[in-house]
């Protein structure tokens, strides 16, 4: 009835696509060289590279949460950036009203976002599972609208900021980076690593990966998929929340800030392969670089434009992303 190939089994895919990684690195190096030529200054270029990588780490963390949600629940979570914005404002509020250290707020935000994510999934999204993709997209869009405008209503449109005590410039590789940015990068990498360990080494992580690979099969072996959906969504929003708290000292805090991260998170997820958690982290770095180095290659244009150009190219040429979909 079906035409499943009956002869030799397919070659097992190599665990790390060295060839592809090499060509991606090649393109990046080429872009950096061109940027150097364009700007004529080594310092400017190394600044861009350093900033790009540091920013990319956070992008990676945000995208990991988003891609995990897609991989397990098949939901395109358009509210991801809104959750990040929520964490931003929560951090601001905690710091401004109680004077607590921003990184303490990080811990609180992550937990709160986790709980909120679980609530949202159980309460609203569970009813939308299995519906056509457009419907799910629209529900998360509705959520985003509600969250972002609630923030607008309660906090107003004035930009706020959060300061990291002891923040200063740190010289790295000929460039200068804010300590807060370096710490944000470090925090993102640590959290990403924890997430990876969770997925690979714990029972819950294995259950999550099983559901991502095969919903029906996972149920058949006794995994409570409903609980996994809730947990996964919660983990995803926790990632967004943690990222929000980490970047709070770095960005102007406005209700629209979340939307900017949202767009970039989607680009990163597509680039890394929807559902591919490691791909998301690596692609975050790539997009961070694309944004900063691209800004040098196209002076006078928004750096976001280079991100979109990369996005569109990936969508057309390799929609499964640089690293392919996993699960």
């Amino acid at each position, binding site marked *: 009835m079906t035409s499943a190939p009956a002869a030799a089994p397919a070659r097992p895919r190599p665990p790390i696509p060295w060839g592809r990684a090499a060509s991606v690195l090649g393109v990046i190096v080429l872009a950096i060289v061109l940027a150097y030529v364009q700007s004529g200054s080594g310092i400017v270029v190394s600044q861009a590279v350093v900033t790009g990588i540091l920013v990319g780490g956070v992008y990676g963390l945000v995208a990991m949460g988003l891609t995990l949600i897609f991989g397990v629940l098949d939901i395109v979570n358009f509210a991801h950036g809104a959750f990040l914005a929520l964490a931003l404002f929560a951090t601001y509020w905690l710091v401004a009203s109680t004077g607590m250290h921003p990184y303490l707020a990080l811990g609180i935000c992550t937990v709160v976002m986790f709980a909120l994510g679980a609530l949202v999934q159980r309460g609203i999204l569970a009813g939308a599972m299995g519906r056509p993709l457009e419907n799910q997209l629209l529900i998360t869009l509705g959520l985003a609208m509600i969250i972002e*405008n609630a923030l607008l209503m309660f906090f107003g449109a004035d930009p706020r900021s959060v300061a990291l005590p002891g923040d200063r410039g740190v010289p790295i590789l000929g460039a200068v980076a804010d300590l807060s940015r370096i710490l944000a990068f470090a925090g993102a990498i640590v959290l990403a690593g924890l997430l990876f360990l969770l997925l690979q080494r714990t029972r819950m992580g294995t259950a999550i990966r099983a559901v991502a690979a095969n919903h029906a099969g996972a149920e058949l072996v006794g995994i409570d998929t409903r609980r996994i959906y809730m947990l996964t969504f919660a983990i995803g929003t926790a990632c967004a929340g943690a990222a929000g708290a980490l970047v709070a000292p770095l960005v102007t805090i406005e209700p629209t800030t979340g939307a900017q991260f949202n767009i970039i998170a989607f680009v990163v997820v597509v680039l890394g392969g929807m559902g591919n958690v490691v791909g998301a982290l690596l692609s975050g770095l790539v997009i961070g670089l694309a944004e900063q180095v691209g800004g040098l290659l196209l002076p006078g244009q928004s750096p976001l434009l280079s991100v979109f150009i990369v996005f569109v190219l990936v969508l057309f040429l390799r929609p499964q992303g640089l690293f392919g979909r996993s699960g």
Partner: protein
Amino acid sequence: MTAQTTTREPAPPAALPRQPWNRHLAVVAVLAVLLVPLPLVLPGAQEAVVVRVLIFALLSIGWNIMSGFGGMFSFGHAAYFGLGAYTTAWLLVERDVSPWIGMAVGMVVAAVFAVVVGFLALRYKLRGAYFALATFAFAEMLRLWATNSDFVNRAEGYHVPLLPENSWWYMQFEPGSPNYFWIALALTVAALVVSILFLRSRAGQFTLAARDDEEAAASIGIPVMRYKLMTMALAGAISSVAGAFYVQYYLFIDPDLAFGSSQSIQAILPAVIGGVATIWGPVIGAAVLGPLSDVTATVLRNPPPFLEFLQGRGGLDVILYGLLLIVIILLLPKGIYGALRDRWSRR
């Protein structure tokens, strides 16, 4: 001699009613006639609300043609709205061209853009979420380009020069003039008529078939790509008219207003709430959302005591939009009109 079916087959289900295209046309005509005297009976402030409803409707009708009837979910429809707006504004401000001509040129520009985007997306076989994200990316790229491009005045955008007296040639009248309403009404009526005629035609039927099952459509001889592009061009052209009129009515446009994601969302909401893939959905949805914005603004200007801290803050209307969106999708996925229509046909 025809083959006989077995007698054990279950009874055939109730006949599917034929799409009443002619009835739709009649309703459009009747509504148009009934609505003409509206500005003469409405208080002045309400006029702005009604015009806004018509702009939303126009924008969403265009969206619905490609996303609802065509099955190609567009998440970046602001691109067409913005192209219509900017083409009209640029031609008017830089070249003193009448907005009527600007509107026509805008339709062509938007249609061409739609065909280019569509061709690329379909050639590379983008579907579902990927297609939606691609349309979003293109709208964003337009926005970023416009924000930084001297050709269109960068982030400043364009102000339509104010004229001392009414002018039909320049589509500008005193604020609150009923002419604005009548023009918007005429444009919306035209859009509805065009939609109905398109869906009734061979091209429309092929588009619907391709939406239902692309492979099957191709296998019975429909050149799917051609009709999908046609649908996108039509959708782009109609939505661009909304943008062109917007500029003339609000006398201002900038990159965020034109190409921003809130416009893309504004294109989607009325259709989803009213009923995707129905003729009347976008109109009904717009009629619900338009006044909502006004009502919330009024509430926020003079809030009741327990909501005093919200005074003067923006955002409540969008929150309500979001709530409405979620409620509709979960409870009435076919939209208001869609649900009503199902109820009526079951009687």
